[in-house]
C-alpha cells in the first residue's frame, strides 16, 4: 500500500488528468451528467422502497420515511461500488493503445476510474444529504464514523479495481463474469434489507466485506448508534489485505501487460 501511495504522489497530476478526462466527458452536458450520477442510486432506492412496501404488506407494518432514507444512504455507496468495479474492470483493455504505446504506471487507469466514480458518488450524496437534513432523523455524534467507513469502502474498491483490471487484460471474459456477479450481488448485500432481519444467520451476510460498511453507514447516520465493531474490524482487515496485496500483484504483472493485451 505504501508503494501505491508513493506512486499516487509521484503521478498525482496524471491521475488527476485521467479522472478529469472521464468526468469532463461525462459532464459535458452538465444536467445530463448530474442525472447520470443520481440515476443508479435513484433506481436502487426505488427498488428498495418497493421491497420495503412488499415486506410491510406481509408483516402488517408501515413504511417509515427513515427506512426509505436508510435505503437511499446505502444506495449511493453501493452504486459507487458497482460502477467502479464495472468501469475499472475494462479500463486497461479499453486503453490498449496507451498500454502498448506509452510507458507510465498503468495503475493510474483503474485508480482514475475509481476517482471519477467517487466524483459521481459525491454528486449523488448531495441529494441524499439534502433529504436527510430535511427529514426528522436526528443528527448524532455517531456521524464521526462516516469518513472511516467511506475510506474502507474506497480502499476495497481500489484493490478490487487493480486486481480485476489486470485479470481482464489477461482473460478477456473476466468482464462477463464480473457483470453477472454485479447483477446479483445486490441480493447478497444488505442494501434493500438489514442483516438483522436474518436473526441468527445474519453473520453469513456479514461475511461480504461490503456489508459491514453499508450496515455501519445506516447505523450511524439513520439509527444513530455505533456500528458493529467486530464486523467493522473484519471489513477493515479485508480492506488492509486488498490495499497491500492488490498493488503488489498489479506491479508484478505490469511488465507483461503490453505483450498480453
Amino acid at each position: 500500500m505504501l508503494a501505491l501511495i508513493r506512486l499516487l504522489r509521484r503521478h498525482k497530476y496524471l491521475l488527476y488528468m485521467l479522472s478529469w478526462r472521464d468526468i469532463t466527458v461525462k459532464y459535458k452536458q452538465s444536467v445530463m451528467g448530474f442525472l447520470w450520477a443520481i440515476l443508479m442510486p435513484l433506481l436502487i432506492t426505488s427498488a428498495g422502497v418497493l421491497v420495503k412496501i412488499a415486506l410491510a404488506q406481509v408483516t402488517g407494518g408501515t413504511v417509515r420515511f427513515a427506512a426509505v432514507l436508510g435505503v437511499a444512504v446505502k444506495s449511493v455507496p453501493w452504486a459507487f461500488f458497482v460502477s467502479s468495479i464495472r468501469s475499472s474492470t475494462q479500463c486497461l483493455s479499453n486503453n490498449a493503445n496507451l498500454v502498448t504505446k506509452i510507458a507510465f504506471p498503468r495503475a493510474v487507469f483503474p485508480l482514475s476510474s475509481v476517482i471519477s466514480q467517487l466524483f459521481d458518488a459525491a454528486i449523488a450524496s448531495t441529494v441524499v444529504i439534502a433529504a436527510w437534513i430535511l427529514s426528522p432523523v436526528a443528527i448524532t455524534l455517531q456521524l464521526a464514523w462516516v469518513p472511516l467507513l467511506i475510506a474502507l469502502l474506497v480502499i476495497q474498491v481500489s484493490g478490487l479495481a487493480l486486481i480485476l483490471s489486470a485479470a481482464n487484460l489477461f482473460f478477456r471474459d473476466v468482464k462477463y463474469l464480473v457483470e453477472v456477479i454485479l447483477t446479483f450481488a445486490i441480493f447478497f448485500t444488505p442494501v434493500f434489507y438489514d442483516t438483522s432481519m436474518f436473526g441468527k444467520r445474519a453473520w453469513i451476510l456479514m461475511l461480504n466485506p461490503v456489508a459491514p460498511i453499508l450496515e455501519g453507514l445506516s447505523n450511524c447516520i439513520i439509527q444513530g448508534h455505533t456500528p458493529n465493531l467486530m464486523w467493522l474490524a473484519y471489513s477493515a482487515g479485508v480492506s488492509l489485505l486488498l490495499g497491500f496485496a492488490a498493488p503488489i500483484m498489479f506491479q508484478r504483472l505490469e511488465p507483461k501487460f503490453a505483450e498480453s493485451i
Partner: protein
Amino acid sequence: MSEIVLEAKDLCKKFRKGEFYNSLRDLIPALAKRTVAGKQLADKEFWALRDLNFQIAQGEAFGVIGHNGAGKSTLLKHLCGILAPTSGELIVRGRLSALIEVGAGFHQDLTGRDNIYLNGTILGMSKAEIRSKFDEIVAFSELEEFLDTPVKRYSSGMYARLGFAVAAHVNPDVLVVDEVLSVGDYLFQRKSIEKMRQVMRSGTTVVFVSHNLPVVADVCQRAMLLENGKIISIGPTSDVVRAYVERGTSPPVSSDDKSVYVSRVTIRNANGVECAQFRAPERMIAEVEITANRAVQKLAIVIECRNDEMYGVFDTSTQRLGEKPVNLAAGERFVATFGLNLHLVPGAYHLGIYVYRYDTQENYDTRIPAGTFFVNTDTDVRGVAHLEPVVISQEKFGA
C-alpha cells in the same frame, strides 16, 4: 567520448507465436485437458531480439534501420519501457520520451486545448511545463483556430500535427523517434525534421527508428542495422545504410564466373573524402574499379542514377562521353573516375554500374545498387531535378 546514456547488454526478447489463451473460457478446458492427458503444449517461441549490445552517447543521433519484422518496434518498446526484456538489460540514464504513435491518448470528445494538457501529462510533462509551452505547441501545430473544437472533428492530418506538436515539446534527455516524421504534408514534415535538428542541437540524444533512409542518413551520425532480431551492422550511418541497401537486393553474383566484374565502387565528395551525404548541386566523385578474369576487349562502363523508387533519373557511359573503349588482359584492373554534379532534389539515390562490350552490346556485369548516397538542398525544391531556382524579381502592377 561523452557519457553513455543508453546501453544494451545482451538484450534478448522471446515471444510466443500464435494464439495463446486470453480468456478463461479457453484456459480452463485447456488446463483440465492438460491435467487429464498430462500433455504439455509445444511452445512456439522465437527470438524477437537476440543478444543486442550497443551504447549510445549523450548528444548522439543514432539510427535503427531494418526491414519489416527485423525487431525495430520491439526494440523501441524496450527503450520506452513498455516491454521488459527476457534476459539481459537495457540501461537508460535520464528521462526518455518517445514519439511513437502521435495522438495515442487523445480523447475524441475533448477539445484540442484539453487534449494538449491530457496528452502532455500522459507523455510525462508536469502541469507547469505544459502551461509554459502551451503557446509554442499551438503555434507549431498551426491549429490556433481549432483549439476549441473536439478532436473527433479534426482531419487526420490535423490530428497527427497536434499529436506531433505535443510530443515534440516534451524535452527529454533521450528522444526516441519512430516513423512519425512522415505525418502531415510535405511542409509539415520539413518542419518536423527541422524541429528534430533543433532538439538535437540542444544536446538531446535522439534514437531514430525508421524506414526513411534519407532522413536517417541526413540526421544520424551512427546507425545500426537489425535483421531477425540481431545486429547485422553497427557504425557510421553511410556504412550501415549501404549494408541495408545491399541486403535488400539480390546478393551479388559470384565474381569468378564473369569475364570482367565491378570490383569496387567508391563515392567521394569533391575533396576526395569518402561520403554519402551531399548538398545539391555539389559534385560527387564516383570511382569504379573493374577487374578482368580473362582477356576482354572494347569495354565500356555505364553509370546510372536511380531514385529511391528505383526510377532512373540519369545515365551515361564512358563510350557516350567520348572515351575510348578499354582492352584488359586477365587479372588486370581498370579504374574509371566519374564526376557528377548532383542537380537533384532531396532524397536517397542509388548508383548503378554496368560493364559491357560496346560493339556487340554483350553485358558482363551489373551492379545495382553499386552505392547509395543522399542529397539535401538548402532551398525547398521538389520533383526530380534541382534547377537551382531563384526569384529574380517580384513586382506588383496596378489594375
